């Protein structure tokens, strides 16, 4: 008896292209919201400029935005998909692990587009308002001998250093976003209740500190906080990935003449940034693979 001719599975490229289109649809609302925000920001800036404000310059907080958006993106990408139940995605004729990775990839494509758009917007705004973000900057640097927070500082102690932004700074937003996106996607894909994990770890740390403090165990009391500090602001920490440590290196410093100015405890280091980027992206890729593997097929039945 002849069997019916078997239908074939779809080609990999077709799946990826369709996922890119579908994810675009899923992200349409957040994209519109973001566009509105940028529009409002543009109006505000122009308003400031017109009424006599200064040109737009670089702010270290801006460097955080690509990373933040990237971390939140998986929420939009995986909207409507019940991953740990009979998700619609799993009913399609594609290997599940590959399919999940295709969707993550589709989200990444749009993420890169969004970051590029954001940078162009910012450059445009800066240029329009007569600011200069591409050229050399004069930065106030704190000599290493002085510890910030020890009290008002003599203005003369601050060094003024000329710093030319490195070419890598332009790549940083893209790598930052990629790293954050990989990690966030791994969490979204790999855990059934990501929020529970996040909240749980946060409160777990607090609890550990509290117990340590009550029981006078030094490493338990300060351990979690130190761990987070290293992970975040250490030389290869998250901040290095996200902002090349621009965020953590700059602080507000009170001067003895009453002013409060921004000063830098050190200058951004390409070496650190590159290492941190490689490290975190590597971790991100591995976690993503592990998370996607949770949904993989091709397993043998446990018993015959």
């Amino acid at each position: 008896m002849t069997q019916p001719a078997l239908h074939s599975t779809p080609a990999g490229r077709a799946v990826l292209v369709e996922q890119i289109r579908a994810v675009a649809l899923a992200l349409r609302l957040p994209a519109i919201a973001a566009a509105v925000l940028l529009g409002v920001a543009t109006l505000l800036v122009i308003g400031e400029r017109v009424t006599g404000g200064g040109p737009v310059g670089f702010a270290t907080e801006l460097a955080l935005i690509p990373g933040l958006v990237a971390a939140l993106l998986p929420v939009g990408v995986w909207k409507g998909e019940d991953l740990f139940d009979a998700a619609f995605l799993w009913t399609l004729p594609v290997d599940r692990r590959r399919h999940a990775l295709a969707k993550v990839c589709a989200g990444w494509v749009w993420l890169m587009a969004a970051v590029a758009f954001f940078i162009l917007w910012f450059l445009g705004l800066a240029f329009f308002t007569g600011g200069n973000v591409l050229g050399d900057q004069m930065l106030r640097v704190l000599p290493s001998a002085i510890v910030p927070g020890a009290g008002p500082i003599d203005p003369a102690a601050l060094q003024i250093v000329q710093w030319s932004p490195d070419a890598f700074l332009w790549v940083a937003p893209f790598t930052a976003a990629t790293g954050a996106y990989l990690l966030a996607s791994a969490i979204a894909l790999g855990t059934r209740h990501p929020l529970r994990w996040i909240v749980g770890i946060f409160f777990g740390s607090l609890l550990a500190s509290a117990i340590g403090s009550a029981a006078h165990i030094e490493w338990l009391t300060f351990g979690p906080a130190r761990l987070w500090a290293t992970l975040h602001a250490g030389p290869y920490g998250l901040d290095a990935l996200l902002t090349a440590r621009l965020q953590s290196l700059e602080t507000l410093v009170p001067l003895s003449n009453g002013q409060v100015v921004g000063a830098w405890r050190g200058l951004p280091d390409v070496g650190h940034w590159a290492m941190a980027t490689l490290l975190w992206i590597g971790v991100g890729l591995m976690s993503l693979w592990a998370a996607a593997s949770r949904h993989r097929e091709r397993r043998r039945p446990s018993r015959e």
Partner: protein
Amino acid sequence: MIRESDSEHGGAAAVTTHHLTKRYGTDTALDAVDLLVPEGAVYVLIGGNGAGKSTTLKVLMNLERPSSGTAEVFGLDTALRGPEVRAQVGYVPERHNPGYGWMTGGRLLQHIASYYPSWDDAYADHLIRGLDLRASRRVGSLSKGETRRLQLVMALAHRPPLLLLDEPTDGLDPVVRKRTLALLAEHLADTPTTVLITTHHLYEVESLADHVGVLSNGRLIAQMPRDDLQRTVRRYRIEVPDGWEAPSDLRIASERRSRTGREIQCIVVGEERAITERLTLAGARVHEVSSLALEDAALAFLPAEATR
């Protein structure tokens, strides 16, 4: 288990399972199920809530892995070759939620079309019109019946060799149900298809069925062609002397006695002639033998506690 071999449909089976077992912790959803769906058949799998019907379909789609045993679709092992199996299947899941509520119906169909090279656009349009769907509405705003119909279009439009329909008429009013069945009948006439339907209510899809399987607590207690089912279950009205008890070797599904105890109406599984002889030999006088609706005949195989 009562099973009839199916010589008239030839040797090829679209779906077979071998001792398929699925456990969720301590709960056994499927217990050594040996399902056999011949090619081209319309096989209706019935059973109560939690009997394991949806689980069976999920295992075939590799949405669930068997705890032990195997399942095959057109000779492909479902656990090892999931994507290829799913390429042969049009699936309507139990939930009325195709996901992607923000897409319009038309866009969702376009999305699926990219996954199935055999997608027939013209046929999809024909089905949409036939089922009275509004393709421009967002999926999230559709009613329960409309999502069900959309899911049917999604399953039928790529003309798969196998249809796995989990409660396909659930949420459909009788008029729409009839139209759906008519479309399904036309689909079967145009495309060589095997259909496996699960349902609570056999009568809703009864006319289309040519095979019936009965699941109870995860066990497949009966599986046979429809004609055999109707032939081997009968209702007997018999007159018996006082204190008469039915022979223990007879498979009696239900029994009703009159107040005097001398008249009994019982549903017995077995060939009519043999059962009549047996009853007569046991001292009963057979007054009337009648056949049952297919659903009642199928339910006769359930353990006595399940039927009243």
